[in-house]
């Protein structure tokens, strides 16, 4: 029976995976092994229900319900002295369980500890904004919405931050191709000239080094210049590389291409 | 661990190889030589050069039709 691979996940897949290979797990330790974390977890557990908590690579990871992320952040900030929200991000588990996973990375300077609060929320579910507690959440959540499409409630200025304001789609989803979808490829043309100008302008030349010698619209041939758009002929009159206008500049001696000397030895 | 490409010298790479082995590498260092096979005597010649200069021939490989690669280690005097 072949392994199930989600069809719309267009990210790059491993070239070959051994059929019976099971990936090892990064070590997870019990929270009780570190008393500072244990105390923090206890204070969280009083107010909200904790689905799972463990210590991974000397940081505590606590998985909670998405509805009480604000209360947990409040507890961490007030009671457990986690005074900085370093990062907010989202992961896309839509193919597996039709859910996003949002993680908040907290830092306590006094205790020198870092905690990661994670919550799984459904695709149409929204998360409460932590902006009143930590101002750094303002931009972080805007980027999370922009990149992954996780909706955030009562955010002061919920707009896209990295992509243009009227961009369609969220780039970091697994269903969004790396090179961008059709709307992304035609974004500038649609925005400036409108959809009907697509076939006039033609697709974007994504290959930076591609030069089409017969296309006189976009490429000029040094030394064999012809008007833009003119018909390309094989035997082109050689036009010398003149650095000045035809009549030359008033005071400056006209500098001809043959007078150039190529210096080869650098020590001169 | 340096790699010296002597393919451009075609078959008269002996002097350059000796020069490199004597002067340019430190004792105990491992280097890779790459040279053209030509008519197959180049391989024997390179092995002789390495032997008389007292280095240890670790590996001698034929990666493709034209080139020959030898890995040598200079004796740590």
């Amino acid at each position, binding site marked *: 029976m072949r392994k199930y691979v989600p069809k719309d996940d267009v*990210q*790059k897949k*491993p*070239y*070959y*995976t051994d059929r019976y290979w099971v*990936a*090892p*797990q*990064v*070590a*997870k330790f019990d929270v009780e092994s570190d008393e500072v974390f244990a105390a923090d977890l206890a204070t969280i557990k009083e107010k909200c229900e904790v689905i799972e908590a463990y210590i*991974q*690579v000397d*940081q505590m*990871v606590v998985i909670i319900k998405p509805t009480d992320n604000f209360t947990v952040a409040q507890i961490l900030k007030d009671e457990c002295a986690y*005074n*900085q*929200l*370093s*990062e907010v*991000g989202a*992961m*896309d588990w839509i193919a597996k369980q039709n859910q996003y996973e949002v*993680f908040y*990375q907290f*830092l306590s*300077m006094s205790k*020198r500890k*870092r905690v*990661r609060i994670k919550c799984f929320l459904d695709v149409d579910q929204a998360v409460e904004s932590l902006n009143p507690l*930590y*101002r*750094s959440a*303002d*931009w*972080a959540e805007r*980027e999370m919405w922009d*990149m992954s499409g996780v909706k955030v409630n009562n955010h002061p*200025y919920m707009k*896209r*931050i*990295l*992509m*243009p*304001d*009227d961009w369609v789609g969220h*780039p*970091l989803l697994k269903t*969004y191709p*790396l090179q961008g979808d059709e709307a992304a490829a035609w974004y500038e043309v649609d925005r*400036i000239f*409108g959809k009907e100008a697509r076939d006039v302008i033609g697709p974007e030349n994504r290959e930076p080094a591609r030069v089409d010698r017969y296309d006189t619209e976009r490429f000029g041939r040094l030394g064999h210049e012809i008007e833009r758009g003119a018909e390309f002929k094989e035997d082109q009159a050689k036009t010398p590389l003149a650095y000045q206008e035809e009549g030359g500049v008033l005071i400056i001696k006209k500098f001809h291409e043959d007078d150039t000397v190529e210096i080869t030895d650098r020590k001169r | *661990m340096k790699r010296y490409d002597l393919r451009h010298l075609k078959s008269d790479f002996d002097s350059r190889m000796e020069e490199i082995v004597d002067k340019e590498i430190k004792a105990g260092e*491992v280097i*890779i030589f790459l040279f053209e096979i030509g008519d197959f005597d180049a391989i024997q010649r390179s092995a002789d050069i390495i032997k008389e200069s007292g280095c240890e021939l*670790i*590996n001698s*490989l034929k990666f493709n039709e034209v080139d020959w690669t030898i*890995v040598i280690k200079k004796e740590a005097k």
Partner: protein
Amino acid sequence: MQQPNRLRPFFENISFDRKDNEMVINFGPQHPSAHGQLRLVLHMQQEQITKAHPDVGYLHRGMEKMAENMIYNEFLPTTDRMDYIASSSNNYGFALAVEKLIGLEVPRRAKVIRMMLLEINRLMSHLFWLATTALDIGAMTVFLYAFREREYLMDIIEDYCGARLTHSSIRIGGVPLDIPDNFIHDLKEFLDKFPQDLKDYEDLLDTNRIWKMRMEGVGVISKEMAESWGCSGVMLRASGHNWDLRKEEPYELYDEVEFDVPVSTKGDNYARYKLYMAEMRESSKILYQTMDMYKKTQENNETELMAHAPQYISAPKLDIMTQNYALMQHFVLVTQGMRPPVGEVYVPTESPKGELGFFINSQGGPYPYRLKMRAPSFWHTGILQDLLPGSMIPDVVAIIGTTNIVFGEVDR
């Protein structure tokens, strides 16, 4: 903002309308002192700013998306382009994150070389900051001097990794090359004359009336604001927090090296300027000590440069050229990529700009399932939103200078 449609198209540089002499101007993406592509929309009453809205995203290359389609080693050169002023610190941040994910121990000599590279990068980044900030405020000579110093450092880095800006000088699991013979000599030569140059810049700037007027009391960041906005690095230490990751959460060999962390409580531009100058002295102190540590590793000849983990890191070149299995394993690691264990890790490091964190969630495949880069400049741009209201236009230029923001890192 406007509602664009066919009749009133939305172009970025049309002049904004004016109501009750409140003027909205674009501190546009192409601005000489915007340190890259920052579009700052400023609502102003005469010269005073009432509302500032930084609009970023002009240099967004989709690095996190690229990371999900590249194997770990392939992604390393991309991290150079994140904070292109000090690219070795990004490489190091990424490499450390992957090493912690795998649980890898890097040999001692590689650690010493890495610390040297990191501190040279810190010096280069601070010198670049000093040059651009001084130029923004008008001090041309300091700009030229600082760039000249930076040239020496770039030559040293170029000797090591062949590139001046995009170093990719650090690999996952260690360091690719041993340092060349003249590296220590050149570095020592540079470090001997560096304090004198620093003194010159400080004589030029410290008591300069214009510099003090433009910098003192401008862009004051309070302790709570720095904390709540997620500032890090010099922005945090200028507001009274004694928080330097190299001291608080020591990684590599920072716990064996003595250096102290300059902290100030003023929180204004001048404090940040003094901190950057002090940090340059600390970095040169560290570099002296790493040179001695390198000599020690030479004596008790721990000369391995890469960690020994066959399923993650390919064998040294000597083994690859001689043993068959090493060659086969190297081939698989290079073509299909190494597969770290399933798990998550967030590893912060102290980059010249602040706390640079890499969050990697791997599901056992050769490509990271999710890679989030915590760039310090992202929040240092965000703080402009709360910091600029109330200041004047020339202060905007000074504040952007001292926040030391780089847009490769902000937009990723």
